């Protein structure tokens, strides 16, 4: 059920776009209205979530440290694992975003007999890294459909990605790596019993949706051919806010666009929002300088306090009369 429902949803979404364009001729809906709506939801949702995070309390300096803190000059300070300055924290953040360093430390914990043993578990890190980098390259490659003239960098990325010149149209390496990484990340959830137990539909849906996007894109390149010239005209139309419709571009295109639209619309409201959240993780973006700078919770409001000293000042006479002990014989 946990897998079935998301799978059904993705298949149904793809079928919806196919039927809608092939038989009901709803190209305007799937090619213009929904993509714009999805983009709007994406932008608004992203900003909304970031603002929400920005407004939440940071009561403590809760940076996660994995190396030697800055201390005495003769103790070697680990600047990136335990940054004490903003620059260091930025460096750590860059490495985190580009290389997923905290995932690299992922451990496998097992009970061997009576003892607990820890081993390294790098597969998740590798699968995640391959997926995210492939996605970046795929996204950059797609810019050729949105920019005219195509920047040299973008066509260069395409040329490098297709450097083995396998088949026609040329096989892009990232098409293979993204598919393999997604398949691995999916298989991991299904096959490893503990991870399957933890997984929810909200974990499977994004994976399956991404698989749907990738598969529909690859199929469009090799099996259900579309007229790329019209695709580019359409995308330029969308990007210049003068939408141009193409009724003959082939329904496979609309399946792909619709799945991408769903992905964009779903993004900010789901766990995929970690893309923005990583920058706002207090455990990663705060320098560990709690011994140099006092962290004051910015949400502290002035509290009316009545200290014991003030209390004694107020009731000194009465206290003395009944013989209570006094700190100060004022």
């Amino acid at each position, binding site marked *: 059920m946990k897998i079935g429902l998301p799978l059904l949803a993705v298949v149904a979404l793809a079928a919806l776009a196919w039927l809608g364009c092939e038989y009901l001729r709803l190209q305007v809906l799937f090619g213009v209205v929904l993509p714009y709506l999805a983009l709007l939801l*994406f*932008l608004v949702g*992203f*900003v909304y979530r*970031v*603002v929400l995070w*920005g*407004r939440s*309390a*940071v009561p403590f300096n809760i940076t996660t440290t994995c190396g030697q803190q800055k201390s005495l000059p003769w103790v070697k300070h680990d600047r990136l694992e335990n940054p004490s300055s903003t620059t260091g924290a930025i460096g750590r953040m860059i490495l985190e975003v580009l290389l997923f360093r905290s995932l690299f430390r992922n451990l496998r914990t097992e009970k061997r007999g009576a003892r607990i043993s820890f081993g390294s578990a790098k597969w998740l890190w590798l699968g995640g890294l391959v997926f995210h980098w492939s996605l970046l390259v795929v996204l950059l490659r797609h*810019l*050729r*459909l*949105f*920019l*005219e*003239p*195509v920047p040299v960098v*973008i*066509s260069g990325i*395409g*040329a490098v990605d*297709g450097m083995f*010149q396998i*088949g*026609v*149209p*040329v096989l892009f390496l990232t098409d293979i790596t993204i598919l393999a990484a997604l398949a691995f990340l999916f298989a991991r959830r299904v096959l490893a019993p503990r991870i399957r137990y933890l997984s929810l539909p909200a974990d499977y849906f994004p994976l399956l949706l991404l698989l749907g996007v990738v598969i529909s894109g690859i199929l469009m390149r090799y099996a259900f*051919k*579309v*007229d*790329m*010239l019209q695709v*580019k*005209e359409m*995308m*330029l*139309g969308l*990007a*210049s*806010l*003068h939408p*141009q419709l193409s009724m*003959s571009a*082939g329904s496979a295109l609309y399946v792909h666009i619709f799945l991408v639209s769903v992905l964009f619309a779903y993004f900010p409201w789901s766990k995929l929002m970690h893309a*923005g959240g990583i*920058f706002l993780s207090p455990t990663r973006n705060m320098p560990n300088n709690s011994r140099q700078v006092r962290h004051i919770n*910015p*949400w502290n409001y002035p509290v009316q306090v009545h200290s014991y000293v003030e209390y004694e000042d107020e009731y000194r006479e009465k206290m003395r009369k009944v013989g209570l002990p006094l700190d100060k014989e004022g």
Partner: protein
Amino acid sequence: MHKGTRIIAFIAVFLIIATMPFLANHGQASADPEVSLDTPAVNEMPVKQCIEPLQDMRSEHMQILDSWRDRVVREGQTTYVNSVGQPYEMSLDETCLSCHSNREQFCDSCHSYSGVDVYCWSCHDGASNNSNGGVE
């Protein structure tokens, strides 16, 4: 908002990146590519027809070329019979480029518009056609 300027800067950077295609295309009319059919061979044709129907050529010409390549180089065949029974020699230089001898204005202009990097030309340059106006 705690560290409000940083949050706002982050949002601004995000919005610029996310709407980059819109900013780049702002106020630009999308220019269609020049795909010129003006070659001596095509001008002589009574009916302007490619080897397969136009719609198929637009989306599938690379796969036709791929199958031609395999059939010529691996299976030693030489003749392609199209969907209406007309035979063609399976050759990129001798067939495609004899009609489309204006490679720069035809194949290349469309490919650069679509951002496709076609590497065939490092070997197949159609030179045998360009020198004598696309006629064998």
